[in-house]
């Protein structure tokens, strides 16, 4: 764990209606680093991201971005502190145009001139979206909608971006584009927290990974080391049940 971590979570527990799904999770993401969260369905990966983003009341523990605490903040406050989130389900507004969607990405910004400038910058990064600027977002392809979601997060110039299964439902070529975009974001010095079902792809794009099981982190290592770990191989083969007999905690 780097001292200069951009995203730092300590002893985070969270769940729905008093039932804890995620327990005692600590992790950190350094600038320019892609950290991948691995684990079976139901391991608590998506819940953890939602908890970081302030969507789950009753979350305990501490989360900070660049040493500024996110504890108790609403999603708007979390965004303004520098943490952006692309959820697994579609989050574009289907009957708003691409431009309106981008503007909504900067909803938390009060400075209209800055917002207009950031929209142009995001369009420079995603020329495909510029071609479709006046189109309704619902008419874009699945890959383009994903791009729009990622582009939209850039409007607030986040320090850390969390993406929940960004490649889901995309053709392999489009998934590659999404992953290369994620590497580009990291290259700009942003921290990336990635949840991805496809373990092989995820480890290829990540620097480091943690494995979650039953709401806890059971393993943490560099992506390269985990790629050759038997237990992860088992997970990646899609073996049912617990891949780890004894959690290290």
């Amino acid at each position, binding site marked *: 764990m780097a001292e200069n971590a951009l995203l730092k979570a300590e002893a985070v527990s969270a769940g729905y209606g008093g039932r804890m799904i995620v327990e005692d999770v600590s992790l950190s993401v350094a600038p320019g680093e892609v950290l991948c969260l691995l684990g079976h369905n139901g391991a608590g990966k998506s819940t953890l991201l939602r908890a970081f983003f302030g969507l789950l009341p009753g979350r305990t523990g501490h989360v900070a971005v660049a040493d500024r605490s996110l504890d108790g903040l609403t999603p708007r406050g979390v*965004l303004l502190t520098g943490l952006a989130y692309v*959820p697994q389900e579609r989050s*574009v507004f*289907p*009957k708003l145009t691409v431009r309106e969607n981008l*503007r909504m990405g900067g909803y938390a910004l009060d400075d209209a001139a800055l917002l207009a400038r950031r929209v142009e910058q995001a369009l420079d990064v995603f020329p495909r979206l510029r071609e479709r600027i006046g189109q309704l977002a619902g008419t874009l392809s699945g890959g383009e909608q994903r791009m729009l979601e990622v582009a*939209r997060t850039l409007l607030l110039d986040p320090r850390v971006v969390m993406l929940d299964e960004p490649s889901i439902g995309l053709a392999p070529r489009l998934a590659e584009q999404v992953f290369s975009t994620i590497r580009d974001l990291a290259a700009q010095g942003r921290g990336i927290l990635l949840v991805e079902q496809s373990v092989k792809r995820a480890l290829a794009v990540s620097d480091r990974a943690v494995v979650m099981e039953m709401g806890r982190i059971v393993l943490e290592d560099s992506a390269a080391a985990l790629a050759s770990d038997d237990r992860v191989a088992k997970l990646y083969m899609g073996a049912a049940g617990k891949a780890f007999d004894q959690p290290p905690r």
Partner: protein
Amino acid sequence: MLAFAEQAVNGLMMGSIYVFVALGMMLIYGVMHVLNFAHGALFMLGGYVAQTIFMRVFDNYLLAVAGAVLFLILIGALLERGVFAPLRGNLRNQVIASLGLVLVIQNTVVAVFGPNALQFPVQATRATVQLGPLSFAVQHLLIIAVGAACVAALFAFLHLTKLGTALRAVSQNPRGALVVGIDVEATHKLAFALSMALAAIGGALLGPLFLVFPQMGDLPLVKGLAGIVLGGMGSIPGAVLGGLAIGVIEATSTLVLPTDWKDVVVFCTIVVVLLLRPQGLFGLRTRDDHG
């Protein structure tokens, strides 16, 4: 032809009233997905508040309308916080609560103002405007003009302002709205306030023509809903054109059929349209779509 033109203007006038009701219901439906059946009763309450201010306080129609708008926005805020917000997540109970509110509001009005119709003698109902060979009460033209202005203002707000775009964003994808930091609860309150303002204006405009009485909102509610269904559930342009169409159809039908038949004509038209286009004139045929 003259008779037709006269009835068309009358129809546009009543249609504008239906548009006030339809738009108000559509705003709340859009973000909360609740059909607020108390809307007709709130429309009626707007008429009473405007009448009371006009008769007992200011004797100024504009101030009376403004007062009704403010009062209803306040009532709407109380209802949103006290009735609808606690039932968030349970659509069925919210709809049932809105039906209960009809009884509460109507009976409260009867208890306070009595069951009889009240006069609302605004100058504009007596003054007439000569349009070629036809003459219309100023109030008729006022209703059409104010209706058009409100529709234009609402469109501009929804499409040209950040807050209005956010309102549309919430109606299309509430989870997506959370992700970009829109305060979804606040948009519910905003939609309620706009809806209440439209109800108050509608009631305050219709009152001077047809008197103010406890059931004055019932027919506009039914016809406004019919306009929504005709135009297509969830579509704002549909609600506008649907409401106007209902008004014009019922008014012009009286030229060829006895007046008693106008409701039959209206609802038969809707049945035929829905047989041909189940999604309404402007609705899109989609699943799980509330844009």
